[in-house]
C-alpha cells in the first residue's frame, strides 16, 4: 500500500474511533446528571442506580476517549508533519483552549466518580454537570480547529509563506459555528439513541425492570430532541458549504453539471464515466433551494472544478445519503416517541416499539461517521482547503503501512474489550435486581 493511502486510512480509523468515545463523553454526562437530578427530586432509588451505572460507562468511555485523543494529538505530526509545521501556529488556539476544558473535565469526573459521600449532593450534581459542559466545550474547540481546515482564515498565503497570522480569526473561521453546532447535537442524538437502544435490547430479553424503562425514557428524550435539531443545524452547515466549498457540495449531491434550478438527488449511483447519477430520485429545484434558498439559483457542478481538485464523488455522495437517511429515520422515531408520550400510550411494554429502538442502536453513530466522511473526504485533495494538498503534508518516513497495521490491531482488540466490558456491566445490574 502507498504511504499516502496508509496514512489517510490510519488517520480515518483513529479519528473515527475517537469520535465515538468523544461523543459519548460529551453527551452521557448529561444523561447521568439528569438521572441524579431526578433522584434528588424524587429520592427514587432507581434514578440513583441509573446515575451510578451511567457514570461507570462515562468513566470507561472517557478514559478510552482520552488515550485515543492523546494518540491523535501526536498522530497529526506523525502522519502530517508539513501540515502541522505551518498550521500549528495558526489553528493551535482552539487546541490550547481544549487542553484546559479537557483538564477540567478530568478533574470534575474524578470528583463525580469518587466524591459520592465526600461532598453535598448539590455539589456532586454540579460536578457531573461540569463534566458534561467541559466535554461539550472540548468538542466545540476541536471541531473549530477542523473547521479551519475547511475554511482557512487568520493568515495570508503569499508566495508559499503564511504571513499576518491571527490565531483568533483562525479559530472563529466561517465554518466553526455551523460545524460545531451540528456536531454537538449529533453527539447527543447518537448517544441518546445508542443508550436507549441498549436498554431496549435488555427489556426485550425479558429483563423487565424499571431500571431499563426509566433509562430508556431519559435517553430517548435527549436523543429525540437532538435529532430534531439535526436538519436545522445541517441545513445551516450545507448552506455554508455551498458558499465556501462548492466542490464538496457537488460531490455530496453528485452534482456533475452546473445548472440553475438544480434537482435534489436522493439515492442513486454516481457514474464518473458518464457524469450522470443512475437510478436516483430527483426533486426539481431542490438542491438550488437547499443550497441557496432559491429554487432558481445556480449550483456549481463538478464540471467547474478542475479535475485535480475534485473529491471522490462516490464516497462522499453515499456517505451523505447515509447520514441524511439515518438522520431522517431518527427524527421519525423521535416524533413517534413524543406522540406516544403525549397520548399516554403504553409504549414501554410494546414489543415492536422496543424492536425498532433495538435496531436503531447504532444508527446515530453510523450517521455520525458518515457525516465526518462527508466533511473529511469531501475536502480532499486538500488538507487545508485551497492552500495545502494532503499529499504534500505527508511525512517523509516510509513504511506507514506498518504503523497502520499496528493501529488497526490495537483498536480492534480494544473495541472487542469495550463491548465485552459493557456486557459485563449490564449483567451485573441484572444480578443486582435479580432478573
Amino acid at each position: 500500500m502507498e504511504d499516502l493511502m496508509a496514512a489517510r486510512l490510519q488517520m480515518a480509523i483513529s479519528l473515527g474511533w475517537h469520535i465515538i468515545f468523544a461523543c459519548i463523553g460529551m453527551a452521557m454526562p448529561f444523561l447521568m446528571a439528569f438521572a441524579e437530578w431526578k433522584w434528588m427530586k424524587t429520592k427514587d432509588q432507581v434514578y440513583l442506580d441509573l446515575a451510578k451505572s451511567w457514570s461507570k460507562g462515562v468513566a470507561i468511555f472517557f478514559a478510552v476517549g482520552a488515550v485515543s485523543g492523546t494518540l491523535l494529538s501526536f498522530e497529526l505530526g506523525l502522519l502530517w508533519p508539513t501540515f502541522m509545521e505551518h498550521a500549528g501556529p495558526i489553528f493551535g488556539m482552539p487546541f490550547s483552549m481544549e487542553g484546559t476544558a479537557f483538564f477540567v473535565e478530568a478533574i470534575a469526573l474524578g470528583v463525580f466518580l469518587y466524591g459520592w459521600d465526600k461532598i453535598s449532593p448539590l455539589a456532586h450534581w454540579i460536578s457531573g454537570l461540569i463534566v458534561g459542559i467541559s466535554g461539550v466545550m472540548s468538542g466545540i474547540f476541536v471541531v473549530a480547529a477542523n473547521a479551519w481546515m475547511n475554511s482557512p482564515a487568520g493568515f495570508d498565503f503569499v508566495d508559499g509563506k503564511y504571513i499576518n497570522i491571527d490565531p483568533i480569526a483562525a479559530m472563529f473561521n466561517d465554518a466553526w459555528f455551523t460545524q460545531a453546532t451540528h456536531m454537538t447535537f449529533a453527539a447527543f442524538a447518537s448517544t441518546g439513541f445508542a443508550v436507549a437502544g441498549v436498554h431496549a435490547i435488555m427489556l426485550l430479553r425479558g429483563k423487565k425492570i424499571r431500571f431499563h424503562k426509566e433509562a430508556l425514557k431519559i435517553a430517548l428524550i435527549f436523543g429525540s430532541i437532538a435529532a430534531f435539531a439535526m436538519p436545522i443545524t445541517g441545513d445551516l452547515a450545507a448552506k455554508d458549504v455551498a458558499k465556501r466549498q462548492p466542490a464538496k457540495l457537488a460531490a455530496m449531491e453528485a452534482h456533475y453539471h452546473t445548472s440553475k434550478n438544480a434537482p435534489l438527488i436522493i439515492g442513486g449511483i454516481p457514474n464518473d464515466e458518464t457524469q450522470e447519477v443512475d437510478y436516483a430520485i430527483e426533486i426539481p429545484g431542490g438542491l438550488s433551494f437547499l443550497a441557496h434558498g432559491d429554487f432558481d439559483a445556480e449550483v456549481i457542478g463538478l464540471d467547474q472544478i478542475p479535475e485535480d481538485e475534485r473529491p471522490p464523488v462516490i464516497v462522499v455522495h453515499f456517505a451523505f445519503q447515509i447520514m441524511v437517511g439515518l438522520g431522517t429515520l431518527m427524527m421519525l422515531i423521535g416524533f413517534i416517541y413524543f406522540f406516544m408520550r403525549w397520548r399516554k400510550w403504553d409504549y414501554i411494554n410494546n414489543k415492536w416499539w422496543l424492536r425498532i429502538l433495538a435496531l436503531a442502536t447504532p444508527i446515530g453513530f453510523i450517521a455520525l461517521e458518515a457525516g465526518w466522511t462527508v466533511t473529511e473526504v469531501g475536502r480532499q485533495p486538500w488538507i487545508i482547503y485551497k492552500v495545502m494538498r494532503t499529499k504534500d503534508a505527508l511525512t517523509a518516513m516510509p513504511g506507514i503501512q506498518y504503523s497502520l497495521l499496528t493501529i488497526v490491531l490495537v483498536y480492534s482488540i480494544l473495541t472487542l474489550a469495550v463491548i465485552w466490558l459493557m456486557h459485563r456491566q449490564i449483567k451485573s445490574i441484572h444480578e443486582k435486581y435479580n432478573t
Partner: protein
Amino acid sequence: MYTELIMIIMGISLILYMILGGADFGAGIIELFIGDKSNSTVSRAMAPVWEANHMWLIIAVVILFNGFPKAYVILSTNLHIPVLLFLIAIIMRGTAFTFRHYDAYHDKSEKIYSTIFRYSSLLAVFFMGITISAFFSGTIPSDTSGTFTEQYIYTWFNWFAVSVGVFLVTISAYIAGIFLLGEVETEEGYNSIRKFIMWIFGLSIISGASIFISSFVSDLQFHKLFLSHPISIAAGVIASLIAPYIYKLIKAKKIWTMRIVVGAQMVLIMIGWFIIQWPNLVVFSDGTKLSMYDASGPVATMKVLFFSLAIGVVVIFPSLYYLFRLFKSEDNLS
C-alpha cells in the same frame, strides 16, 4: 518575551508530568515487581487522580505544536517510531487500568488487565525516556539527506537512549514508591515498598552513570553540555546528596516531609536538564542547535498562546487543588 514565558510554562508542565504522571506510571512498575500485594493500594490511591495526572502531557504537546512547530515536526518525524510505541503503551495502560477498576466482576480477567497495565506502564516510561533523550543526545541529523537508519533509527536506538529510558523507569518507580508509602495500610506493605525503593534507587544510580558513560564513549553532546553548565552540575550533586536524608525520612515514616523533599529532588533534576537545554530545544548531530527562538511561531501566535495558557492556569490550578484536597487530605499512615 512571550517565547520565554511559554517555555517556562511548558517546563512547569513537564515537571508536573514527571512527578504526577511519573507516580502513576511508576505505580504500574511497582506492581510489576512486587506484585498483587500492591494492587489494591495502587488502584485506590490512583483512581481519582490518574486522568488529571496525564493531562500535563497534552498541555505540553499542544504548547509544542502550537508554539514551537519546528520542534514538534522533529519529534514526530525523526522520532516517529518510539513516539508511536510510547503512545500504544499509553493506550494499553490507560485502558487496562480503567478496565481493571471498573469491570463489574473481579475474576480471571483481572489478571490480564493487571499484566497489561504493569508491562505497558514500564514500556511507556521507557519509550518516553528514549524519545526525550534524542533532544539532547545530538543523534538527530540537522538535514534530511541521511539514510533511513540515520534519519529514523539511530536517532533513538542507541546505548545512551536506552540508558535514559531505564533511568526514567527507575525514577518513576521511585516517585511512585515514595507516594505509595503514605497510602499503604499495613506495616508489611510499608516495608515491602521501602525495600523496593532502596533497590530501585540503586538501579537509578547505575542507569544514571550509564547515561554519562555512554555519552562519553559514543562522543555525544550530552556530557559536554552538562559539564559546561555549573548550575546543572550543582543541581545534580544536591539531588544526589539529599538521598541519605530521604532514607532517614523513610525510616522515620515522615510521609509528607518525604514527599516534599523527593518532589524538590525531582524539580532539581528537571531544572538541571532545562538549564543545559536553554534556550535550545534540539541539539543536532553536527553540534548545531534549534533554539526556541528558531522554532517558535510568529509573535501573534505566542501572545495568544500565552493568554490561553494563563486562562488555563487560573482555571486548572484551583480545580486541581480541590481535587487533591478532596481525596488526599485524610491519608496518613499514623
